[in-house]
């Protein structure tokens, strides 16, 4: 009996010694959807990275056979070919490179802008906070997609500008989340202790406050990558995203629209690719949120 209590105490001690990240990972692993989502996402990443080793875009797609145009899916062309005889499967795989990089870079831009402004607002307070939050209100008031269209058309159409536009549009939500996160930990004793031992504001924010308010920011970032992929492909669909003839999924759907009546497979596969990628990111994001804040799950 005594031994048993000892063992229980031991496991409890062990659980406490586990870091928060390990604990989150343990809960994350238990979620079947999350594991499936993570696997799908990793497969898509591997395909995007290794596309160049398996296929040669220049000879197989750009130098494709025009006589092979508008072929329905077959063994030779599993997803069929488009109006210029380009293989849709290879284009969809190469398209992952555009969508993933636009999604990730846009969120990175949003993180840099949003977290620094949000942390500043939350930590400094006063007039600075007021100004930052009122500017954020303005960005939230304008519908995201319209703002992104306006920014891209002003800066000129290019992949980088698309990333910047989508990033700027997502940054407002990061400002709000990181401000709120900083506000909740700002008055904790350890922050006060850090200040008492002479840590300057910059150091206090980056070493003591931000690491402890990361959880909601990470969750939002994961979900935002998916949303950014949808925004970016929407802009490409409208003809102002990634410039043609790049095999971006939204642009491929826009091209397939003219042939939708007789060659509907052209509008099927790029859309499925977007959906699969975003589903996997949403599964991971939702599971991360539940793992970080188990109160929500119950």
């Amino acid at each position, binding site marked *: 009996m005594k031994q048993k209590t000892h063992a229980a105490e031991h496991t409890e001690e062990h659980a406490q010694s586990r870091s928060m990240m390990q604990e989150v990972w343990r809960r994350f692993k238990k979620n079947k959807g999350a594991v499936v989502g993570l696997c799908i996402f990793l497969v898509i990443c591997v395909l995007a990275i290794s596309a160049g080793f398996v296929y040669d875009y220049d000879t197989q797609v750009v130098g494709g056979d025009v006589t092979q145009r508008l072929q329905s899916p077959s063994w030779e062309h599993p997803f069929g070919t488009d109006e210029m005889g380009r293989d849709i499967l290879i284009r969809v795989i190469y398209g992952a490179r555009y969508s993933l990089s636009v999604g990730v870079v846009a969120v990175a831009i949003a993180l840099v802008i949003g977290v620094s402004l949000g942390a500043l607002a939350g930590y400094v307070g006063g007039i600075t906070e007021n100004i930052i939050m009122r500017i954020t209100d303005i960005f939230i008031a304008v519908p995201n997609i319209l703002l992104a269209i*306006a920014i891209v058309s002003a800066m000129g159409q290019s992949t980088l500008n698309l990333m910047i536009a989508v990033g700027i549009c997502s940054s407002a939500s990061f400002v709000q989340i990181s401000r709120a996160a900083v506000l909740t930990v700002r008055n904790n004793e350890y922050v006060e202790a850090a200040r008492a031992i002479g840590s300057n504001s910059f150091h206090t924010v980056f070493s003591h406050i931000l690491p402890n308010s990361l959880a909601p920011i990470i969750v939002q970032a994961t979900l935002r990558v998916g949303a950014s992929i949808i925004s970016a492909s929407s802009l490409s669909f409208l003809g102002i995203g990634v410039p043609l003839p790049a095999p971006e999924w939204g642009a491929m759907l826009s091209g397939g629209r003219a042939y*939708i009546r007789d060659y509907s497979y052209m509008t099927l596969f790029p859309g499925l690719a977007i959906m699969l990628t975003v589903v996997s990111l949403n599964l991971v994001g939702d599971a991360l949120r539940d793992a970080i804040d188990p109160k929500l799950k119950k």
Partner: protein
Amino acid sequence: MYKYILKRLVLLIPVIIGVSLLVFSIMDIAEGDPVYQIVSETASEEVIEATREAYGLNDPFLVRYARYMINLCKGSMGTSYITKQDVFKTYMELLPNTVKLSLLAVVIAIIVSIPLGINAAIHQNTWADTGSMFTSLLFVSMPQFWLGLLLMLAFALKLGWFPSGGNEDGLKSLILPAFTVGIGLAALMTRTTRSSMLETIRQDYITTAKAKGVSNKNAIYHHAFKNALIPIVTVGGMQLAQVLGGSVLAETVFSYPGVGRLIVQSIERRDIPMVTGALILTTIIVSVVNLATDIVYAFIDPRIKSQYARK
């Protein structure tokens, strides 16, 4: 309560000024000379210069912005560079189309999402729950324009039940765009309804009600649902605001003449007065709908209402 509404309306003014400044500066840094949207590129130097003067394009940025804002206060949003039509009038002509589309989309979303969400919450962790959560995950992750293309393919081109674009057929031409917007919304609201319902049915007062002999069904529909409705209404209102401003993709896929499509077309043509005016008007509408959501929220939740009453 009225004080609160008034305060919120007054707070809207700096947002509108900010939005106009933002839109004005974005359009200002855009490449290309707007004068060529007014006269042809082959026009003589004198004509171009005269047009610049007439439209005040030679003035510095702040002068043009100040002039625009003064005119705005006088109730004029200017005329389009391209169609020479009054900006406000053009926008107001198309607005009813977008409002119809948005309202129908939200109605569809509510009809689909509330029963599905409640059912999923009551039968948590069963197949009904997993199934509806998985389906809503798929639709949440679907780009709106792709869903639009699929609906168009199935119901307009293959089955021929609805027109594939335009708005000549009244309600019939509204159905597909509204479902395109509404299905995505429904997916989002099903998730909200479920989590809100789950939170409510675990509250002590529901247990109390059941302990006092209220039937399960009664407890859910009369005791829990009313309280679970609060976050659902908030999300619904926010979504309505979002749709009013962001149905541009559905409008584009179905060539539906709404304000979203007007803004996209005007941005492409660099029709600065039209873009600025339309974006400001859209922002006002979105903000007012958001404010209305907050007020409705206070009305259905007496706890919040009493907070305002005290202020």
